[in-house]
């Protein structure tokens, strides 16, 4: 590929997809940003709770049925 062909592709691209000028958000993004962060924090709490519930159930199962430990380890 020579330089003139490269330049021709460049010109075609620039004509089809002009440069973006004055790129600024059209609104204040912070309120929506804060909602996303807070929603993420809430889902994080519920995920943490779920993990603790599963860990608790597993502990109870191990305590009640110690014979299942080798079986579980075999299948891991």
């Amino acid at each position, binding site marked *: 590929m020579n330089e003139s062909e490269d330049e021709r592709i460049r010109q*075609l691209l620039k004509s089809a997809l002009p440069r973006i000028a004055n*790129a600024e958000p059209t609104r204040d*993004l912070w309120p929506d940003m804060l909602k996303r962060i807070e929603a993420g924090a809430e889902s994080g709490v519920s995920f943490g709770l779920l993990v603790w519930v599963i860990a608790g159930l597993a502990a109870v199962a191990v305590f009640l049925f110690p014979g299942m430990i080798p079986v579980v380890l075999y299948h891991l």
Partner: protein
Amino acid sequence: MTTDLFERFARGDLDAFETVFRQSHREVYGWIVRIVRDRSVAEDLTMETFERIYRARLRFDHTRPFGAWARRIATHVAIDHLKALRREVALPLPVSTPARKDPAWEREVRDAVAGAFRSLPATLQATATLALIEERPYEEIAEALDTSTSAVKSRIFRAVRILRRKLERLGIKP
């Protein structure tokens, strides 16, 4: 931006995060919109970038520039978007019989070029957009893509080669 601000940000202080966001989101938005070329989508991706930044705040090295780190995350977010979009992009139809100087034909060619460009692999598309259309320095692109300038040059070469083949198939001789 001060070290104290980033320390508070790292602890999850939302006021500090708001300050960081307000001071840097325009630059991040400007970078993303140049890659995805859609202002409304860029707003959403800017928020996604800062959501990732907030989640990864403990990994931020205060001794290095925040802007460069944010730009790397923004580039990944924008490329992920292009990958998702590329699955939906239909290849443009071949252009009709050439009739130069005809505005309708020129528009058809522009649409075909834009369509062919959008069907490029996402990373090549992002690299070529920044280098060939936005004319950003190779070093800046390399830093944002977390790669070398020679890798950037190689990607541009590959993007142009693929684009040339696509355009020839569409009846456009570059």
